[in-house]
């Protein structure tokens, strides 16, 4: 056996020399993962810009049909969850097990609320026939502009859908963290998973910070 290798613990895997090296590596890894996410959503932002530029009026009309108050409320919910998340990470930095668990659970609940509201909104779209496809119908637009309205709603569903998917994954991660935190896995010395999950959660929040104005707010005055 190699003389240098040491017994492996979660706090220090055998490929690393020091805990600090390991923590740095994990954090860097997470950030790199997040920039892949930027590019992932970036593709859809590009599509959005191109189509909004080509059909400003239709997009304004279509986006005015979304409920701003629900959107805003959901933004607040998500921001709250970011706040509780950051407190959970802080708890982890201080090695306070109770605090971690408490705030992670709060974050989880808020994430759940966000998804619930999103589900409600989606359901509404189904009832209003605002879901792209053969049954699509958007009142107030002439038949030949229905297609372009579908373009808006296609983007709406793709963007909020993929965002929601990220939330669902986040909820999964949170559940895992809660379970582990309760077991007492995390301490001031070893809290990297909490830390990097926090990064992920905030990132998903940032995406929504952009989706909200783009989908709900811009050009409402044109839509009237």
């Amino acid at each position: 056996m190699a003389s240098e290798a040491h017994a492996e613990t979660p706090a220090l895997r055998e490929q690393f020399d020091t805990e600090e090296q390991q923590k740095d590596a994990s954090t860097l890894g997470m950030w790199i993962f997040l920039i892949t996410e930027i590019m992932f959503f970036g593709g859809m932002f590009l599509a959005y810009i191109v189509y909004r530029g080509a059909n400003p009026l239709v997009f304004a009309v279509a986006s005015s049909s979304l409920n701003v108050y629900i959107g805003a409320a959901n933004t607040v919910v998500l921001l709250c969850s970011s706040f509780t998340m950051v407190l959970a990470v802080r708890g982890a930095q201080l090695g306070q097990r109770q605090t971690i668990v408490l705030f992670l659970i709060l974050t989880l609940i808020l994430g759940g609320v966000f998804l619930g509201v999103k589900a409600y909104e989606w359901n509404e779209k189904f009832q209003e026939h605002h879901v792209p496809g053969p049954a699509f119908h958007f009142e107030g637009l002439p038949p030949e502009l229905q297609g372009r309205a579908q373009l808006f709603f296609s983007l709406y569903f793709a963007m909020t859908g993929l965002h929601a998917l990220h939330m669902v994954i986040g909820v999964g991660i949170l559940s895992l963290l809660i379970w582990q935190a309760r077991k007492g896995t995390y301490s001031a010395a070893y809290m990297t998973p909490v830390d990097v999950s926090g990064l992920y959660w905030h990132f998903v929040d940032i995406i929504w910070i952009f989706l909200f104005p783009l989908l709900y707010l811009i050009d409402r005055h044109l839509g009237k």
Partner: protein
Amino acid sequence: MITAAVQEREHYLNASYGIKSWLLTKDHKRIGLLYLATITFFFFLGGAFATLIRVELLTPQGDLVSSETYNKLFTMHGVAMVFFFLIPAIPATLGNFFLPMMIGARDLAFPRINLLSWYLLVLGGLLSLYAMLAGGVDTGWTFYTPYSTSYSNTWVIATALGIFVAGFSSILTGLNFIVTVHRMRAPGMTWFRLPLFVWSTYATSVIQVLGTPVLAVTIILLFCERVFHLGIFDPTRGGDPVLFQHLFWFYSHPAVYIMVLPAMGVISELVSVYSRKPVFGYHFVAFASVAIAVLGFLVWGHHLFVSTQSLYAGLVFSFLSYFVAIPSAIKVFNWTATLYKGSISYATPMLYAFGFIGLFTIGGLTGLFVAALGFDVHVTDTYFVVAHFHYIMVGGTIMAYLGGLHYWWPKMTGRMYPEGWAKLSALVIFLGFNLTFFPQFVLGYLGMPRRYHVYPPEFQVLHVLSTAGASVLAVGYVIPMIYFIWSLRYGKVAGANPWNATGLEWQTASPPPAHNFDQSPVVTHEAYDYSTVLGEVEVG
């Protein structure tokens, strides 16, 4: 240095036994071998499709297969070769195996993620394979809409999802490499002491991380359009098929540098070792890798010159395309200059390196042809383009890959390959390759469109030449396959450093121990300082 008795010593291959010890391994070296097996499979699969394509094109009529089948053949050929062979080829096999060793690390930063990324490649491969067996897919490897979303009734979704999953594998590999190079270098291993292979693999990883997600989202949107009837690219709803092309090529152009940069890294190693000289202009070659990675992201629109993309965008993209040529030129010149006053050995890997430099030059220069707007209008979507990219991908990357495989084979297995056979096959491959693809330049300029199942009879002579070449080429590829397997048992036992190479990977036993080094290395020299590895020397 340890050279004695390979058999008794414990190394990564005999540290544990059984299928499970392989399928659950976290050792980057074993994972490298798992990749090797996987991509070899896909290479021969893609090669089988290529063989059928070439046989079909022997005659102008479509007499071997139907049009539908032919279209599936070139699609599956492109998909298998690009996504499941060439993109993972060098980084995931040689990179996985040697990158940690070259920087003096015990493993990659995230061994579990490394294993996961192999599983993802296999999963993606199986999905695509399933699609191929279930009925195939016929959109071309470029999946242009609206054909792929609304018209094709083949297995588009399974294939696309396969590529999506494989994309994750690629992202994770890239991420792992970047973190490893930043955080795991041995003491004394500064950035400018890194072997050039590490530099180029690092640059590749940057592309993988920044580009692949865009392909992922493009596939997701395609998926949503085909399955959920969303209408992102659908022209009947005001969507723009050219937007799809932008998104696709935003990834797929940089992806060609994913395919060639690691190859360039291998060549830098080979040229240095077999002329026993440090790579001429080390810093320039190192930075050229990074420059190619960055500039490579600015040129994707050169695939869209006749797509109804705006004239001005065409100008911008053509202009920027020429910037990528410069770092490539720098590399070629520096490799050539490295040979000057060297001590040049004709070992097989070096022959492949010569082949690479020559064929890459031809492929790259014809890249300049197609980057010229007025010229590309005539040759785009003809065999000229087919020849251009095969020159780089087959003549270039595969040559480098084979060169690297021969070079590191003793380290990986502890055995030498048979030199005579190896030289022979290198020669066969070189000749077969040129006979296959050179005529295609002429064909393309004459106007032979690509993806054509039947063609006007005046093109036949050149097609026959090409097919003849492909048969020679196939033989050339089968020979190494055989002798590599043969050498596992009967090859000469290799010492720790049969080539007198300087990389850290050569300072440990062949095959290496499970943790790579018995003692963590400390680096005190620049890369490629051959005076440190040759015992007594004759200064020449």
